[in-house]
């Protein structure tokens, strides 16, 4: 349970970044992109993406509409909203801070604390 919570948060950030970089995209496209960049995070469970998309849409960070896919099938396209862009910036900043803190923490050697 705990593990999937962490994953959802990470995934949400990845979804926002993906949409920020690539523009409107359907679920499959987002899954592929995350897969390409993050390796095996989504290789087994692409479906877990959809609850995350729903949550983001409920929070109005992303919006969706139906359109035609590359091979002319009906597909649901997601795009970043203004609120989503703001959220992404905030999250990215927080992520960097956290990462930097953790980095410093790991860089500390035992003798430094004496």
């Amino acid at each position, binding site marked *: 349970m705990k593990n999937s919570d962490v994953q959802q948060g990470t995934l949400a950030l990845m979804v926002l970044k993906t949409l920020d970089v690539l523009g409107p995209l*359907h*679920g*499959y496209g987002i*899954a*592929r992109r995350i897969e390409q960049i993050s390796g095996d995070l989504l*290789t*087994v*469970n*692409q*479906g*877990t993406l*959809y*609850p995350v998309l*729903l*949550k983001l*849409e*409920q*929070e*109005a960070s992303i919006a969706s509409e139906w359109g035609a*896919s590359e*091979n002319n*099938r*009906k*597909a*649901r396209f997601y795009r970043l909203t203004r609120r989503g862009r703001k959220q992404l910036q905030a999250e990215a900043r927080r992520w960097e801070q956290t990462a930097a803190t953790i980095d410093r923490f790991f860089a500390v050697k035992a003798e430094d604390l004496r």
Partner: protein
Amino acid sequence: MKTLRRLFRRLTSWATSARDEEVLRAEIEEHIAMQTAENLRAGLSLVEARRQALLKFGNVEAIKEIYRDQRGLPFIETLLCDTRHALRRILKAPAFTAAVIVTLALGIGANTAVFAVIDTILIQPLPYPRAEALVSVWHTAPGLPGLATIGCSPSMYFTYRDENRSFQHFGLWSSGGASVTGVAQPEMPRALFVTYGVLDALEVQPLLGRRFSQADDRPGSAETVMLTYGYWQRRFGGDPSIVGRMLTIDSRPRTVIGVMPEEFRFQRDPELILPQRFDPTKTFLGPFLGPCLARLKPGVTMEQASADVARMLDLWLNAWPPNPGINRTVFQDARFGPKLQPLKQEIVGDIGSALWVVMGTLGLVLLIACANVANLLLVRAEARRQELALRAALGAGWGRIAREMLVESMTLGVMGGALGLGLAYAALRILVVKGPETLPRLHEIGIDPFVLAFAFGVSLLSGALFGVIPVLKYARPRVAATLQGISRTVSHGPGRRRARNTLVVVQVALALVLLVGAGLMIRTFQRLRSVQPGFTHPEEVQILHSTIPEAIAKEPERVMRMQHEILDKLAAIPGVTSVGFGSAAPLESFLGGGNPVYAEDKRLAEGQVPPLRQIRRIAPGFFKTMGTRVIAGRDFTWTDLYEKRRVAIVSENVAREWWGVPGAALGKRIREGGAADPWREIVGVVENVYDRGMHVEPPAFAYWPALMDRYIWGGENGSAVGSGMFAIRSNRAGTESLLTEAQQAIWSVNGRQPVFLVTTLKALYDQSMARTSFTLVMLAIAGGMGLVLGLVGIYGVIAYVVSQRIREIGIRTALGAQPAGLLAMFVRHGLWLAGIGAVLGLVAAAGLTRLMSSLLFGVTALDPVTYTAVTALVIVAGVLASYLPARRAIAVDPVRALRAE
């Protein structure tokens, strides 16, 4: 903020869930199709490409599940789903459902109705703006024994009005009647007399015209009157041009200056509002009239206002002259003190204790009803035992099962509550129309949101209450044991019946408490009825009031002759055995009190105030008509009156207090007031009259002739004899025909004389016991309901036990058990339940009935007769309730019982 937005989205998407489901399915389908296409491009076979795509997506159903949980509001969804299931199950068992709903509706309806009454009378503020600042100003006077409270005098009104530091508005009011003449039928509407300030304190704006101003209070200014909405509608058809019209009220022309709004309410439901005028130059320390009404300045507390009044009492005592003939020391020694109370408390009076007792007993009835319903639910749950066990075995959490059962019982509760609300509404409509006039604020009673919330809350609560019992018993995880126990070939062990037995014992105990309460009220009522009231056959005494307006006759002698003439005409009506005239009928005076009366041979210590006596002025025939026995001496004669002889009659308790035996009082002399008043010789002693109700010691009376040479409290003119009560003893009392003939007799003497306050002595007698009979009826209903429900409970348990043990009975019979023995076995079970219930009930009753001791008269809350009788009743009824189903046991044919397996 984010959470709120999500909640909102979830709410909206919950409403459109079916479509959303479709969208998600399509989206997933699309996703898998794209992955499949991708895999095909990578060179996989069609079958393999699709398989890989599905594998990569993961468990579709699990994803949908997570998605669904996130999308809607799962808690509410399952709740609604459970409710739907519950409704379906409930409707499938109409007999069971009807039994439950009717039982609950009676319990909840009764509680809701009484709560609506309590809510209106005790909880809601009075219908005036900022009503909590309104206080009634009374006084205590420890120096005047036997007088709990005393009102304000006009002089007090002037002092308080001018000197107070804590009142925003202040005025004196009293109620009575005022004759309206010069119309088709002279009448005497109920009138409220107010000084300037009373209506201002109430802060009620008139519907038409204006309120009284300070000028209306000044003697000599133009005479004015205000109408209340009801009277304006009744007499003038709501004529909007009424303001400015002249009405002849108490023989004087008065201008209508305004009409009060429809929602205006005041004590005794006035129809006219008249200004009350006092002339400061003719005002003395006494007499004491009604209470004063004050609106406290913002921020002033009751204590501060009391201190303010205490300060002003000192000013008052020295600022005004004592009444002629009365020494100032009498007023000083009375030791007046302030007694302020919220206006609401004054209006509500002592009805509160009775209402709470009724509410408590109906709460017990609801508890019994819940126990009954719980019993029915236990039977149903019993039948579902296997189903529940199976579901538990298949993985349903016991919380889920418990919730489902609770939802079902709460749904039943709400359904019962809805029907109960309907019953309560009907009951309240009847109450408002037919209710006792003595119930304060009667016309404000209705169902408001607060009462609705109460009904809903009680419904849910009782649903949870009776629902939790089967839940505790059956929803617990005991899969293995239950599945094993499905075998039907053994009689159930006692453990299985414990819950139902306990419920029945509780029911019997509660029913016993209710019956003890009802029994105590019956005993109280009996005691009240057995009091010799000081009058006989009150149903034969017709009472009516009439006033001879001053414009017609003013001199006391002339007024008296007219009254005498009326009496003669009344006596000539066929069927009339005697007639009487007096200032008031027994049980009719609103205020207690009385005036100091001196006895010539009883010396008082310096500054001592003589005992207060109730004063009544009467004409010959009063006692005969009322049926009050003359114990010693004689009644007044007409000669006594017309020659203005100085004679008096006293009640037995006065004679005994002063002179030991009634006969010794004859020839002694008494007087009312001070030295200026002449001594009057006692010519008769009459029996005590319970003038303030059968539950109050009879007041001490001094009776004066209606026509005297000198009246002490006001009235050198004929007002003392001009207005009074006629009593007619006839077996036709209370009939319309007698009343018409009596009215004609009065109008044949004087056509401009209103007749009002028509009643019978019996009605006054019943009214004096209204609170007791109201409580008695309510408790008797509650006790009856409790007993019936309790008996149904015992009956149900025994019948169930018999049906469960049919096989065992068959075997026993086959082995030679005697029917009488079998019968005794089951009856003993019922007796056992009733017995334990009765013992517990007796203990509870002993504790609880103490709460109603203020309603009792002549019996203690632990009255042994009541307790014994009620216990015997419960035990006998319990035996009967178990005997009936037990008889079915001995009718069992052993062959059939064994074959039924």
